[in-house]
């Protein structure tokens, strides 16, 4: 075995989800246009993008609910379409728009899933942790209640892979933390998580890697740390005197906020030209920080 073959084998062993050149067209509309991504075992992959960017379409292709126009998806080294049943046996799925049987109780939903996936070992713990009443009919549940039911349904079989489409929508902060704890625990025990989200705070909090999708294309796929260490800085400066805005009209510099004697700048790239300009003024205070994921996300979207 050559070193390259060895590397490829290792890669095959650790790579749980692989999306290659995935495209989904609806006539002229390109919902997803040739995206590539891969998720490793034990990784929590955040899939970021605004509404209509193609996140849900990608997830539905991964789950084989819809068929791609082109491209290939593999999970656990199995074809997402041909081996869909085997993949789903190892996958827990949460829809972005949880739709359940309105006339069933939570218990009936759980029994239905258990009849196909086997008895759950963690169901009672999930019910307790999410403070969910399984005897209430789904039609009487609030949107948060329905979301809880969807989450428990996705988690109850302790799957090897979780596909979560905006998992914390409609949940209060306490329950959001419960979801994060479960996701982190699953990942710690070797499960792989692929989750889409709008909530950059939660992505920053729990994801190890992110993919940013824009108009059906992946525009960035990096670890959260790598993204944050990009040369995007936020500089907050308070001056002793009046500042000429023309001094800061530099390439890659955006004035984020401006008030009497104070300036907040977002700087893409080299920070030194801005610092040099600031030498012309007497500073009261200066704060330089790495941009938050939100700033980076916005920067990508404004490209």
């Amino acid at each position: 075995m050559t070193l390259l073959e060895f590397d490829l084998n290792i890669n095959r062993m650790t790579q749980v989800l692989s999306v290659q050149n995935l495209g989904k067209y609806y006539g002229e509309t390109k919902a997803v246009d040739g995206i590539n991504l891969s998720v490793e075992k034990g990784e929590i992959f955040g899939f970021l993008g605004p509404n209509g960017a193609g996140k849900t379409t990608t997830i539905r292709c991964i789950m084989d609910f819809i068929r791609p126009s082109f491209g290939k998806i593999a999970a656990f080294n199995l074809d997402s379409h041909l081996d869909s049943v085997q993949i789903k046996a190892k996958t827990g799925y949460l829809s972005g728009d949880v739709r359940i049987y309105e006339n069933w109780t939570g218990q009936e939903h759980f029994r239905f899933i258990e009849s196909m996936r086997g008895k759950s070992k963690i169901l009672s713990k999930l019910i307790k942790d999410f403070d969910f009443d399984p005897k209430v009919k789904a039609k009487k549940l609030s949107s948060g209640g329905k979301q809880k039911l969807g989450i428990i349904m996705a988690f109850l079989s302790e799957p090897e892979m979780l596909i979560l489409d905006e998992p914390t929508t409609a949940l209060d902060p306490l329950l959001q933390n419960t979801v994060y704890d479960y996701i982190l625990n699953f990942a710690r025990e070797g499960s792989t998580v692929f989750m889409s989200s709008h909530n950059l705070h939660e992505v920053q909090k729990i994801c190890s890697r992110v993919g940013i999708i824009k108009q059906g294309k992946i525009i960035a796929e990096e670890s959260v740390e790598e993204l944050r260490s990009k040369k995007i800085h936020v500089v907050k400066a308070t001056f002793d005197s009046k500042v000429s805005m023309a001094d800061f009209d530099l390439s890659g510099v955006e004035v984020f906020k401006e008030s009497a004697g104070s300036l907040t700048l977002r700087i893409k790239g080299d920070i030194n030209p801005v610092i040099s300009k600031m030498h012309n003024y007497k500073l009261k205070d200066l704060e330089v920080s790495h941009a938050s994921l939100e700033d980076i996300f916005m920067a990508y979207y404004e490209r």
Partner: protein
Amino acid sequence: MFPIFLRTIKNKRTAIIAYIVSGIAFLLMYIPIYPSFASSGKQLVEIMKNYPQGFLKAFGIEDIAQAFLSLEGYLSTEHFGFVWPLVLIFLALSFAGNSIAGEIEKGTMEVVLSQPISRLKIYFGKYLGGLGAIVLFVTTSIFASIPIAAIFNVHYVAKGYIYMTILGVLFGIAIYGLAMLCSSFASDKGKANFMTGGVLIAMYVLNILSGLKSNLDDLKYLSFFHYFNASGALLNYKIDSIAILVFVLTTIIASSQSSLRTIRQPPESAAILFQAEEIASFHSQRRESCEQVTLKCF
């Protein structure tokens, strides 16, 4: 497949019971009044002879004399030849409409599709659930005639009800197969029922038209209602072999086509399993996104 089958039956148990109760209620309405009806049978036969053939055919009356002189003739004319098939059609439509298109419409198909079960098994679990309900309804709503007739001291011949049950099941599964096919083409229950309803109404009209003019006679072969001969089964213990062939072939062709459509879901077809919904959701999301951008600009 069994969990899907069981769930299909459980979900519709109230509807199944309601249909069976209504089928028996009709019998309880017709059978007790039969003795008084039979006593004036000869006068009715004379009156009916003056009616046009097409009109009589529309009500399933083939042989006027037989129609009023035995319980089976009376039931085939009043109930099994007219009202009962309608109830059966509604039952078949309700099951088929809900099974694929209805689940897509409600969005609950995702719950099933995300489980480790093949589309073929999902389809057949649902299909067999509907089939079970049809067989249950047909059997109970036909065989209930026997104890009801016995309670009201009306003479009956049990053999005819066995033939009627076989014919009823064949007719029911053919309608159901057709409705499942329409359901696999549609993305919501209303469209699926509209398509099946349209086909059945066209068949009913063709059957009536064929009786009105001799040169339109051949049109009857295009209609299920021509092959559904309740009086032949109940009175003469006979089911036409062509009728068996038509119903069985329709069932096989329609069911296999609908199962293939459900499984294959070709990418170029936008009207199957989620794709129509997906397009709508995609466009609405793009719209929302545009609105957000517009708001941000302001």
